[in-house]
């Protein structure tokens, strides 16, 4: 009796382990963070992109309901891809675009905007990338949709036409 049970239990344990690992094989091991957030906008103090004046977050996220905070850099190739969508989004009056110029130099960033157009209402420069960390950002490009001082959605990587349509639908 006893000797019959032991092989059965062993086979069962083996099967369960096999199923767990087999299922685990198919899971993506690239971590994808939560993109639907309900977090307060982190407060920050950064230098303005155009001049050396200090810009504080409380003054930026004040007048409108919706803000689109976009982290960009002239050295980032995917930023060029998403630029046309930002220019499209700029046409909408209900949303204000805030640019976070990430670890960039002024000359390159200015010529980037000169060539492709400037979609931003306000640009601040995050020279060492520390404020982007406070926002929970990974790198460039990355964007956050802010509604009434709360981050409601985050876009990792360049935004595309679908994202643009989604944003336009949200702010309607």
């Amino acid at each position, binding site marked *: 009796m006893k000797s019959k049970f032991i092989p059965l239990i062993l086979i069962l344990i083996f099967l369960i382990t096999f199923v767990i690992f087999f299922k685990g094989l198919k899971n993506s091991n690239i*971590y994808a963070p939560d993109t639907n957030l309900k977090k307060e906008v982190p407060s920050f103090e950064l230098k303005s992109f155009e001049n050396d004046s200090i810009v504080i977050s409380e003054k930026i996220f004040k007048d409108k309901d919706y803000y689109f905070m976009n982290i960009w850099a002239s050295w980032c190739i995917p930023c060029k891809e998403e630029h046309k969508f930002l220019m499209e989004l700029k046409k909408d009056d209900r949303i204000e675009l805030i640019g976070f110029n990430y670890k960039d130099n002024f000359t390159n960033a200015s010529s980037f905007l000169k060539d492709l157009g400037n979609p931003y209402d306000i640009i601040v420069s995050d020279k060492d*990338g*520390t404020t982007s960390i406070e*926002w*929970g950002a990974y*790198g460039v490009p990355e964007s956050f949709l802010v509604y009434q001082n709360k981050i409601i959605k985050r876009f990792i990587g360049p935004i595309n036409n679908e994202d643009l349509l989604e944003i336009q639908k949200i702010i309607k």
Partner: protein
Amino acid sequence: MKFIHIFLIVAIILNFNFLKADEIKTENKITKNLRCLICQGQSVYDSDSEFAISLKIVIKNKIQQGLSEEQIYSFLKMKYGEWILYDPVFSRNTYFLWLLPILIFLAGGAIIIKRFYKKK
């Protein structure tokens, strides 16, 4: 006058020496336990990605502001989720992970003891 000069130089050197060895140690310890989210096989300590470089600065600043290791971890967990920590915290999701080795150890021990007494 000369004495004052020497005194000042010594004071400056001492201050440089004071370069907060402890803080560097803590900083390294923390960054070694953080996963670089851009190059996910590496720790933040090992990585040279823009993300990791910025994160190292943030941690350095937080240590200088007097935040404890735990506070820094919880700050990062809030921003990036628990995935950023190499050492997972004991929580509802990780009970199994932490307790399984102990359970296996106990079960194995029980089998060995049982056999041992049986032989006797």
